[in-house]
């Protein structure tokens, strides 16, 4: 069975400080990987997606970057946090094919508070 693990569970960070969030998927080779962001009370906003190692596409910048250093790992980061970065960050995976197979399976998420 596939498992998706996100870390950390929660973070409290200062404005201007760096950030690194991680996500690991086990039990599935070459998944599509995604980062989503959810502001408090807001909808799910896709930030990045990756279909293979080393390739990441940006959907919305938000002064964040993402990398996929391994097939099963997806990293979200920034060198300088903004207050607007606060929210709930969700990593997700899906099968390689699109359309009806594009069911997303979400990790438990990281709750970020920027002060």
């Amino acid at each position, binding site marked *: 069975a596939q498992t998706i693990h996100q870390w950390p569970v929660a973070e409290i960070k200062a404005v201007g400080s760096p950030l690194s969030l991680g996500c690991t998927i086990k039990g599935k080779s070459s998944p599509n990987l995604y980062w989503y962001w959810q502001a408090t009370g807001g909808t799910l906003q896709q930030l990045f*997606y990756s279909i293979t190692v080393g390739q990441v596409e940006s959907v919305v910048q938000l002064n964040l970057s993402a990398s996929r250093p391994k097939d099963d790992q997806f990293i979200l980061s920034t060198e300088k946090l903004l207050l607007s970065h606060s929210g709930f960050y969700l990593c997700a995976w899906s099968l390689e094919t699109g*359309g009806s*197979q594009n069911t997303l399976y979400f990790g438990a998420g990281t709750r970020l508070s920027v002060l």
Partner: protein
Amino acid sequence: GDSVTQTEGLVTLTEGLPVMLNCTYQSTYSPFLFWYVQHLNEAPKLLLKSFTDNKRPEHQGFHATLHKSSSSFHLQKSSAQLSDSALYYCALSEQGTGSKLSFGKGAKLTVSP
């Protein structure tokens, strides 16, 4: 481009009454529609997804029918339960665009006794 418009904001129901959350979409290509549910402090989970052969998906008493003529995929349940209280998101994926899933703004359903 593709987009999803759904019932949004707060929806309050009394237990036992029917649930209806609307979802309409705009799509250039063959669309697939999804309903995701997010309970408090949890990650979103798939509730239903549309089929290509017009079957009506059902799960946990919820069902939705894809109507291409009206571009809709409304979520329904005959009798609301307290445990149905959650955020509900309609989402759209288009054939051949495996990387893109567009979410609606979400509806917060609260079921009271």
